[in-house]
């Protein structure tokens, strides 16, 4: 491109881990010396596993039908799409009539709607929220920001492709998509899940190392465990 200063090179420096998270020796109240590693001691280190298919196709189809009809959205708003979700969950557009409901915590939700641009800072929280959700789980990306950066295509602090960092099952194009488009996206997502193609969580487990490498390349102050159970 013309307006790029090709002399500018970014500097890649390691960000040191926060002091309270570093492994160190501490003395307990009864005088023992113990080693602690805050990032390892309190969290399970196991990687996510691929969820196997059921033993027969008809059972798997039944499961997928059931999964498609049980979508619980995490009320996590990033960017302007968070505003589109308010009329969607209230009488004006009323997504509840399709059995799609919002929950306040990732532990009770299985659909993460990334509703707009993600800055690096928010990406960290979104990854954490996604990993805490129980399986089966799905990700929906709203708007051009999650698809190719949208109007934040030259921003120093906003990611351009969401599927580098999280497995996206459904994109809804628009800037911002209207609530009708979102409803259509939910219907399409249901169709995808019924066909057994909503395999985002399995894709995440299979390519876990690749996803982590991508995430750590942009989140420089990585101060959480590799997988947040």
């Amino acid at each position, binding site marked *: *491109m013309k*307006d*790029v*200063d*090709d002399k*500018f*090179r*970014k*500097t*890649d*420096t*390691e*960000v040191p881990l926060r002091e309270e998270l570093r492994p160190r020796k501490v003395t307990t109240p009864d005088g023992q010396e113990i080693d602690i590693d805050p990032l390892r001691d309190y969290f399970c280190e196991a990687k996510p596993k691929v969820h196997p298919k059921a033993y027969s196709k008809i059972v798997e189809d039944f499961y997928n039908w059931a999964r498609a009809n049980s979508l619980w959205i995490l009320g996590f708003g990033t960017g302007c799409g968070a505003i589109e979700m308010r009329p969607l969950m209230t009488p004006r557009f009323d997504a509840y009539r399709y059995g799609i409901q919002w929950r306040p915590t990732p532990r009770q939700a299985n659909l993460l709607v990334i509703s707009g641009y993600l800055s*690096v*800072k928010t990406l*960290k929280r979104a990854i954490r929220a996604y990993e805490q959700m129980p399986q089966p789980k799905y990700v929906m990306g709203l708007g051009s920001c999650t*698809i*190719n*950066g949208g109007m934040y*295509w*030259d*921003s*120093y*602090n*906003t*990611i*351009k*492709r969401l599927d*580098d960092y999280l497995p996206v099952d459904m994109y809804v194009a628009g800037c911002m998509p209207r609530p009708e488009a979102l409803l259509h996206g939910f219907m399409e997502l249901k169709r995808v899940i019924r066909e057994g193609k909503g395999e985002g969580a399995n894709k995440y487990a299979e390519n876990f190392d690749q996803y982590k490498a991508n995430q750590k*390349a*942009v*989140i*420089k*102050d990585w101060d959480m465990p590799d997988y947040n159970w």
Partner: protein
Amino acid sequence: MREILYRLKDRYHLGTPTFQRTDLCFVTVRRDEIRAILTELRDMEGFTHLTFLTAVDWIEEQLFQLTYMVNNREANLSLGLRVLLDREDATGDTIHDLWPTAATYQRELREMFGIKFPGSPRVDEEFILEGWTDLPPYRRDFDTLAYSQQTYNDRPGRVTHDPKTHMQKTLYPSYPKGAK
């Protein structure tokens, strides 16, 4: 407004004032006098509110310009004071003791422009960016497009059209004559 400036002019070095409106004026002052002027404006002239403190990067002149906007609510007057700092190792004077809110502005300027404010509370902690190691991003020698291209992956297929030629082709396909 002019009377205030005349009163200040007796004791301080003021540049030529720029009147945007009758109640909005900008004036350049010297760096070693800014704290005295701000204190006097706040305590004697009724400019009790610091509207904002921001910076401009004059990279061609190798200068940073700090703009202190103070407001007199009673008389409905706004006065902007400009201070020019050397761009190399830019250091400003903290005014968090005059207005506590200035500490937040100074923290932001420290992060986004790299202007130091020694003594300001928590000024060296990160404010908006997390784990930022590059140049401060609001500096003009920081190329945000180049940085984003080197950091985040593009999705192939994105096209940029020059608006002039694109609209010319769309609206007047046969212009200039014979071209199609």
